[in-house]
């Protein structure tokens, strides 16, 4: 389902394209709280802190860890297939209950000592046509 004109989120001196998302385990039984994640066209995949995987009930080390590189250095991440639900943003900027978009089978890389929620290309952004309107400070994810 496409997402039209999702507002940028003001953060400090800048406003960024970010989405309220809720991650679920592949079984769909365990879900996170709404998390505000950056839409990052420079990220190869989706990256979340390792604690999120534990919250979802994943055995973190049941998969082969992979080395990742980011702007802050190298790290270790464990990919676990998850579900990403994009939530509506209410007028006050908080997340609503309506799921605008449901993306299944996303390999989310859970990063040890990770400090960011990032939505990247592999199996998430590559499912859409991303349109960013910096003038109006909105963005769209279209099929």
């Amino acid at each position, binding site marked *: 389902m496409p997402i039209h004109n999702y507002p940028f989120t003001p953060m*400090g001196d*800048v406003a960024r394209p970010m989405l309220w998302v809720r991650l679920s385990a592949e079984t769909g039984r365990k879900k996170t*709280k709404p998390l*505000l994640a950056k839409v990052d066209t420079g990220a190869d995949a989706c990256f979340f802190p390792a*604690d999120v995987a534990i*919250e979802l009930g994943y055995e973190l080390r049941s998969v082969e860890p992979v080395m990742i590189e980011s702007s802050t250095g190298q790290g270790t991440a464990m990919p676990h297939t998850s579900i990403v639900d994009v939530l509506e943003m209410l007028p006050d*900027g908080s*997340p609503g209950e309506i799921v605008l978009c449901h993306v299944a089978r996303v390999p989310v890389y859970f990063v040890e*000592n990770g*400090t960011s929620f990032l939505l990247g290309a592999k199996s998430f952004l590559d499912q859409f046509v991303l349109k960013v309107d910096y003038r109006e400070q909105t963005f769209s994810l279209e099929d």
Partner: protein
Amino acid sequence: MESEAKNSGQIGVDGNSLQLVEKSMRRTRKRGLKNSAFVRIERKHQGKFLAISRGPDKKVVAFADSYGALLEAANRLGVGDFSIITAPRQGVLYSH
């Protein structure tokens, strides 16, 4: 013109990695952000995980270095439902 976010007091501290605070979101009249609420993030909290309680009295309820510690802290506060973001490093968090 902005008014300072009110810090209504520290609720509790658990070691160095976890700090529970309660801050009100204040309305700003800053040009272009007329309908935004904001909270000033203290330097020690910048870049940390932050829980915001949901509902009409939107408040920042907890900061922590790790996601797991934040979940534990916010649940311990018993504020009901909340959402989680990473606190900006620039010092001010705006909400629409």
